[in-house]
């Protein structure tokens, strides 16, 4: 039933972890690559420590911004307690990138786990590293860019 020409990614976690920021970086990198892309998220209550989830879909032409249940190709989860509640989104054979996909102790700043997990995701997607770097650069303040480039590399090379 799902559209084979569209790739579906979900980034999930809890408020304050940088889920929205990670999906902004992802959306930006895809956008730079030249695909049609849509990114859906819900603001408001999510800022208060609750579950947060963003959907990113891309391909030649994307209609709905929301990933249908059971059609997610890549599920990136920033918080271990959010894995099970999001698992039904994943399609059979889809890739789960859980928070333990990178060794947290190797992060200079643990708050860059979001970007480190994008590094892991980047191994699966056809997006040049330059686009990722540019997406990180335009989405983060200068003073935390270096630590996030480092986190991205850790995920990408892990």
């Amino acid at each position, binding site marked *: *039933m799902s*559209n084979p020409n569209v790739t579906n990614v979900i980034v999930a976690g*809890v*408020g304050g972890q940088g889920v929205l920021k990670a999906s*902004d970086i992802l*959306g*930006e990198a895809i*956008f*730079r690559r030249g695909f*049609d*892309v*849509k*990114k*859906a*998220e*819900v*603001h*408001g*209550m*999510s*800022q*208060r*420590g*609750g*579950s947060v*989830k963003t959907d990113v879909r891309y391909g030649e032409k*994307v*209609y*709905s*911004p*929301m990933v*249908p*249940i059971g059609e997610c190709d890549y599920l990136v989860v920033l918080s271990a*307690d*959010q894995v*099970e*509640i999001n698992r*039904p989104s994943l399609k059979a054979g889809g890739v789960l990138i859980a928070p333990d996909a990178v060794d947290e102790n190797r992060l200079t700043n643990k708050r860059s786990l979001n970007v480190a997990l994008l590094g892991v995701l980047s191994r699966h997607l056809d997006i040049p590293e330059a686009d990722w770097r540019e997406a990180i650069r*335009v*989405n983060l*303040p200068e003073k935390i860019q270096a630590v996030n480039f480092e986190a991205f590399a850790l995920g990408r090379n892990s």
Partner: protein
Amino acid sequence: MSNQSDSAAGGARLLLSGNEAIARAGVDAQVALGAGYPGTPSTEILENFSDLGGPAQWSPNEKVALEVAIGAAYGGARVLMTTKHVGLNVAADPLFTVAYTGVAGALVIVVADDPGMASSQNEQDSRRYARAAGVPMFEPADSQEAYDMTLEALRRSQEWGLPVFLRVTTRVCHSKTIVTPHGRIDAPTPTHFERDIPGLVMIPAYARIAHKKLREQLAAISEWADTTEWNGLSGSGGPSLGVITSGIVYQHVRDAAPEADVLKLGFSYPVPEGKIRDFVTTHERCVVIEEGDPVLAEAIGAMGLTVESKSERYRFGELSVERIRRILDRDESPEPSMPKGKPPQLCVGCPHRKTFEILKELNCIVTGDIGCYTLGVLPPFQAMDTCVCMGASIGVGLGLRHVIPEDEARRVVSVIGDSTFVHSGVTGLIEMAYNRPRTGHLTIILDNGTTAMTGMQEHPGTGRRLNHDPAYQLVIEDVCRAVGIERTFVIDPVKAVDELKDRIAESLKSDALSVIIVRRPCILALAKIKKIDTANGEPKG
């Protein structure tokens, strides 16, 4: 920060949320004023408009925002007013009459609905307002359309001399999609107030004429609806399946039923009767798929046409690709339920927490209000007993005090936030002094110095305008005293927690009218507030 380009020129391809796209169109159309009150999912429109250089303001509430917008549009300016769906209720009084008077300039009212209630107290459908007030309505389905239709709505408003709705929903507001702006449109004409007493002074004699004129205009616009390309067909699936839809639902329909012909109503009120009739009569099976109330289905049914509509269960919540597949498959089996996520909660270190702990301990009957502090209803506090709408805490508390037995009445406390108090708590406080309950009353104003729930916006009590420039600062305790509250206290819930508890307990025992302003900045906003105050050259406390 989040946008990859700040070029305002045409041609650049941008990845924008619907809210960002509306803001950019406002700037490109040289809108002279954007007015509103923060409310998810509409808030970022005016913030972005301001960041892009547009003159934007938060008003105390949506009614005032719309009134200011009306005045500016009477003066010939292009104006945007933004609100969430429930805010339009607050602004409904001026809305219904500005439809009669019309405007000299352009007035576009952006109303953002929240089907599924991601962050709202109800899921009312603003398409009803278009019909009730007689205000034409556009419904964009993505950010490009949000941009294009904002420009078109401004153009049409000016041409028709009527206010026009741009109705969006959470998934349009907060989804990012690709937009190619086409640069600036024609410059607005110079502003000027042209006296038109029968046209603008709605005494009954003039309003009777104005109402008839409005209905004649809507009849003419209904013919335009049949010719405009905003109402268009897509797909070439042949005559077997046709879907009529609007807004974000169009996108889900294209994914769920790529084989269907779709009639998409980008301009959804007045409905294009001719196009709908043609579409229905040339498709063997025609299904109306819409989020929320069956508004289109009712309109099409009233035309005497037979179409299928969704079953009642799909009135609730958002639609999605999966749900639309089920509607088309006539699948009435129970929908699979996704595991529930972690609910939001009051932040660790939130200054409101102490108050709710005390209210729980004192076994208070708490009439609550709209804001972060509504989360005081959830465990571990469960210290909220009612929540109706902005400002209702005070009136509802007073109503209870009037009728319930004295021992219960003495436990009633109204709890309201600072921004909500300015929005519509002031009149409740006047009521408290005017129609005082026999047992007196206690209102607690939780003042964290920001409109926290919607993402830390300014309001009159912060003393800063939307763009954080300094402004006259409304002093809430002065308002309390001025309206006749006998005892007004300002207490820091961290520095003086014992005093807070004693004051609440003692106020409940007395027959006095008391307001306790529990004042301590939002921990999320603290750093931002300090930075702004330093930039403004006036560090506070």
